[in-house]
């Protein structure tokens, strides 16, 4: 019984995720106006702390930030717009 309920919970959670995913594909993936207005600095402050301390823009050169931007996109699965804005900010 215990095992069954665990399986049911897993199934329900997984199915809800698939539904959210399907809806997002059907409606096309667009950022709301509020999100589109965000600056690179704001996205940097919000996103980089999710996994580690927020890196200082002075730690790397513009060329290096370009490379790290791609690398972090593979870890954090940032949207392309987020990565572009954050890298632009870090390069300054």
């Amino acid at each position, binding site marked *: 019984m215990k095992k069954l309920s*665990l399986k049911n919970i*897993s199934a329900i959670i997984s199915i809800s995720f698939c539904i959210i995913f399907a809806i997002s594909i059907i409606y096309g*993936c667009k950022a709301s106006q*509020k999100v589109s207005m965000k600056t690179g600095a704001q996205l940097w402050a919000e996103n980089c702390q*999710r996994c580690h301390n927020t890196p200082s823009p002075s730690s790397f050169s513009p060329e290096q930030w370009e490379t790290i931007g*791609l690398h972090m996109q593979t870890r954090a699965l940032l*949207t392309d717009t987020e990565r572009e804005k954050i890298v632009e900010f870090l390069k300054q």
Partner: protein
Amino acid sequence: MRQKIIIKTGGVLAILQLLLLAPKLQAQQTVVDSSVLDRINELEKQMAAKKTGEDHFMVAGLATMGFASYKTTNTVNGSSTVTKGNSFPDADNFEFSPMLLWRHGKKLLAEFEPSFNNNGVSVNWADVSWFATPGLIVRAGYLVLPLGTYSKREAAGWIDKLATDPMGIADMAPTDYGVEIEGGLPLGSSKINYDVALTNGNQLLPDGTITSGNIVDNNNNKTITGRLGLLPFSNSSLEVGVSGMFGKVGDQGANIQNTMAKVYAFDLNYVKLLKPILINIKSQYNIQDIDKVDYINPADSSTYSFNNHTISFFVQGSLRPVNASGFIKNVELAGRYTIFNTPANSTFGSNQHTFTIGLDYWLSWRAVFKITYEAYKGNSTASKTLGAYTGLTTTNTLFVHFAIQL
């Protein structure tokens, strides 16, 4: 870089020279010294000839090192034995892993991380990513599988707030050879992301345990691992994810060749500044189910069976007063509770948990000094009839640890 500086200083000198000459020129209306003009022409030519190129190479990575002092008490049938030890590097406390990153233009990135650690020299990952279109990254190589988030995102020594890894979590999300697609997409004020890999898959060993990362597949069946993540809030503070890994694990031609392994994982990450404290909560729950088949007892090669069901879970919280001033803003307090239950009636079954607490001092955003204390308790559930039962084990360990992003 040097060339750039020379060009720059050359340019500045030329301008200074012109400025110094200016009053003279006005007075006498003579032509500028031709050597200055020649020099300017020469510099202009050099600038035009200098190509920036489109690729970039850099070295990053990490190093962790430390000291561990432990005391273990094992009690079987009422009699106890105590062992004490201390060591500089131990399993969780030494790693030197320079990572190489190559970027070709804006769409290709290769990453290779060799690692010198307690297993000798090994490779953490080696793969090439192609940023195909917005929202789609295609990757191939030796990949960290997207089962949960700990292995891929939280395990690095300078990222993990505690000196140890939570038991059993990373083992179920190994590194494997194959291909992968992933991406992050906006969804109104939320975000979603996906990550799916197709790889050789794990291999079931005769005793019912699993091994991973075979460069040649042990069967012709590939394993699929996938994760869907959702960041519901526009400030990206919360991410929740579900993952699954499905594939046959038995050796081709063996009587266990159709044995399936199914692994599920649920993960949560919440990071929010509640002034003046940065709150950080991370959690993951893994469930691994392998079909019940006949296994072989390594002690005497007889066959036996058990429900091959394993779970691991951790929840970790940490607090750092980032808005405080002075010394205190670099201090972080962390705690974690971990459960790792391996199959009962096997030769290795055990119900285990740990409480871990730690105090960290951040020397910079990417260098940390940690003091971690861990209390472990393991209650053997291994088969008594097979003589595998090991009783109750408790271990208390103090770690002193340093980690840095290279």
